[in-house]
């Protein structure tokens, strides 16, 4: 395996140009923590951007951060934390789920675009990426977007790059919007609801004026073997439903009380404060019930995005049909499903249910032979798939970048 460790944007340009000339596709990595996600990439040359790791500028007053794409997540998070700011889309840390070292770069985080619980209130990575410098599959450096929060000059190319798993361009520098951290948080805990009732409770909470910033449900079966924060609040075989409120202290605590009243038909809510609340949401965000170090280590894990109000019904059907386990985030709009191992991760049956619900499913964790056998990313209707492919082609006509990562057809 050939690993090219680039030092600057010019190196990236040259590496891509050489790859075009030699018709050698490149696998793009930051720290490579997510290399096991997606279709296996068809190449043996790796472009490593982790040396592009400088912070270009951070202006807390402008709510703007510009960093090179290889900057380590850990460093960036502690930098903005020092100013009491955060990425409000709450990106997940995949290391527990995937069983990888606790590493990762900002470019990898954006390319994966995996937003956490606050997605329902604050949006995803796509909503916070304001500008990029990148190198396309033409081997050209270009920029898109800007360094201000409000900008409609030219096409919003940033939206395409977030969540593209490095198949459109190699990002060299990114500008992100950061937001102040909330002063306080409160979590309402409801116990013993089944998936349908919990879905209703979360729908009621999200339809209330109390500005909910997290709504998750963990069925008892998924909690049974869970360690850590979630394990500690769970009673044997009893589900927990979590609803989070954030803001200034007076407001968060008052809303918690009001929301408990709104939800009283679902039971008496216990209220957790600040640190006790935060650890739970970190566990939900990082999907610890299905951690690679836990009893579900060998089970493939799906990430299903679906209309929230019918998420409970979908999750129940999946769990029942597959003998698997599910947990819910985004008020039912995000379902993580761990299914007993099989050659195709039960893709066909699962996708049938998901399609009927109007959702889509991505296989986030599975052994390589399984990922070769199924579509990791949700198969799309012909028209969209063809348009998506034309868009990809407009960035990388020779399919140099991460060939086949998002689409099985391209790898062969």
């Amino acid at each position, binding site marked *: 395996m050939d690993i*090219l*460790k680039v030092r600057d944007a010019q190196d990236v340009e040259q590496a891509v140009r050489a790859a075009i000339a*030699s018709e050698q596709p490149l696998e793009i990595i930051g720290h490579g923590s997510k290399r096991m996600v997606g279709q296996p990439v068809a190449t043996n040359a790796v472009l490593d951007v982790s040396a592009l790791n400088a912070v270009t500028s951070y202006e807390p007053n402008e709510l703007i951060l510009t960093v090179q794409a290889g900057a380590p997540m850990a460093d960036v998070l502690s930098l903005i934390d020092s100013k009491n700011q955060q990425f409000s889309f709450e990106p997940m840390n995949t290391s527990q789920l995937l069983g990888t070292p606790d590493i990762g770069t900002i470019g990898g985080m954006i390319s994966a675009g995996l937003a956490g619980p606050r997605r329902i209130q604050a949006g995803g990575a796509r909503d916070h990426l304001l500008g990029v410098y990148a190198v396309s599959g033409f081997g050209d450096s270009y920029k898109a977007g800007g360094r*201000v929060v409000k900008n409609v000059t030219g096409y919003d190319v940033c*939206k395409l790059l977030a969540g593209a798993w490095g198949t459109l361009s190699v990002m060299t520098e990114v500008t992100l919007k950061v937001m102040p951290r909330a002063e306080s948080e409160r979590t309402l805990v409801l116990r013993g609801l089944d998936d349908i009732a919990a879905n209703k409770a979360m729908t009621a909470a999200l339809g209330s004026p109390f500005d909910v910033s997290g709504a998750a449900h963990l069925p008892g079966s998924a909690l049974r073997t869970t360690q850590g924060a979630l394990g500690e609040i769970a009673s044997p075989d009893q589900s927990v439903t979590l609803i989070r409120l954030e*803001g200034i202290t007076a407001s968060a605590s008052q809303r918690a009380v009001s929301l408990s009243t709104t939800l009283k038909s679902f039971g008496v809510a216990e209220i957790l404060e600040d640190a006790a609340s935060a650890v739970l949401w970190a566990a939900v965000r990082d999907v610890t019930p299905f951690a690679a170090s836990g009893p579900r280590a060998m089970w493939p894990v799906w990430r299903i*995005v679906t209309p929230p109000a019918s998420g409970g019904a979908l999750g129940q059907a999946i769990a029942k049909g597959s003998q698997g386990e599910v947990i819910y985030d985004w008020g039912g709009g995000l379902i993580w499903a761990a299914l007993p191992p099989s050659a195709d991760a039960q893709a066909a049956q699962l996708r049938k249910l998901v399609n009927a619900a109007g959702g889509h499913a991505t296989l986030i964790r599975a052994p390589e032979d399984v990922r070769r056998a199924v579509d990791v990313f949700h198969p799309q209707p012909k028209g969209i798939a063809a348009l998506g492919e034309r868009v990809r082609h407009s960035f990388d006509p020779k399919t140099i970048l991460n060939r086949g990562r998002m689409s099985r057809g391209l790898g062969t």
Partner: protein
Amino acid sequence: MTIMMPAPDQAVLARREAIVAALHKLVPGEGVISSAAEMLPYESDGLMAYRQPPMVVVLPDTTEQVSKVLKYCHENGIKVVPRGSGTSLSGGALPLADAVLLGLGKFKRVREIDFDNRAVVVEPGVTNLAISQAVAHAGFYYAPDPSSQIACSIGGNVAENSGGVHSLKYGMTTNNLLGCEIVLMSGEVIRVGGKTAETSGYDLMGIITGSEGLLGVITEITVRILQKPETARALMIGFAEVEHAGQCVADVISAGIIPGGMEMMDKPAIHAAEAFVHAGYPLDVEALLIIELDGPGVEVDELIKRVEKIALGCGSTTCQISTSEQERLLFWSGRKAAFPAVGRISPDYLCMDGTIPRAALPLVLRRMKEMSAKYGLGVANVFHAGDGNLHPLILYDANKPGELQLAEDFGADILRLCVEVGGVLTGEHGVGIEKRDLMPEMFSEVDLNQQQRIKCAFDSQGLLNPGKVFPTLHRCAELGRVHVHGGKLAFPDLPRF
């Protein structure tokens, strides 16, 4: 007219009668308008200095009709300009002499309201405000609120990625969409997203939003709705120096407060607005901030206190706090009427729309004053201060020969200045024709070529809304060519492992 549009295709113009007849077959009834008198209302959009009668106007009312019209135009090499309500301030909906103007005004239905999924499915001709009205009975609203919300269409909002006073806290159009249906120039109908928080595959909805009618015609939109905050209150704060107001904005944000809205007006704008609506604005200040806080009552009351204290610390000279809904609306009345108010003190004005890093505000206002003296034209500033989005209104008189040109040159200088200090050409009004020729100030040819390649993926013949956004048009075949830079490794010293 200083902005040149592509030369009309004489061969298309020569076929006009046959084209009109063919369109009549595709869109029966009153859906085709071809007489000069009836086409008059379509000659311009909100950028009224520019007018151009279209070749013909088509007003379909189903996706199928849109698809047929586009397919016909595609097959016959005819250009198409989409239009919503025609309030664009950048000339995005300006007709072309040899193009079909495709109006979406008949797409007026709210198709579905789904409170459980907090989603509303609408047709593109529904006005922005009508969405909020349709869900108000259940306490919901649609957050992005351009000042033109009574008139502008949601389709136009998607095409322009419009923002409003509340964008600072609730985002622009793009942050509040769940799905859309678009018809490509080929006539193909594509649906992306739905009631899910994220779409699958590439974020095509994200690239369509803000594409100014160049990528596809939007025929259905699913938006996210929110519960109305329990209360909203506003502070109206005067400052003797613009710098102090700018500092106040920065300090509010660094204190971790994201207000629902944070607007600034400079002296000329304050005076014009006060003369028009008598909102009680202080006239002896250099800058006025209106800061609105929304949310639960306890939160708003507490944050009002914090903001007031921050303002005092920045040297505020006056501070009024709304105690009733009526008073809150009064504070806003002057800001919301700023454009017509300026319209009263000047025969014509040009509304600019750059964004700057907020820290650059004092510098930009100072330089603008110098330019105002140089060009001999007045300028009044209203400003979405929270997110750095400036709206300088350049005052001129179109009846005085040369003044439009002067005003446009002044405007271009302001936008160049925005880019120079690290900002951008447009924060919410779009590039259209107005800022088209300034794109190279911000983007290199390589940058613009990559954007145009995306256009090629949607519209390979460049028939949809040509002459907008991009200063030079390239053929898709030319843009798609990959240059092979020799076969050898060009980076011998690159570390390899």
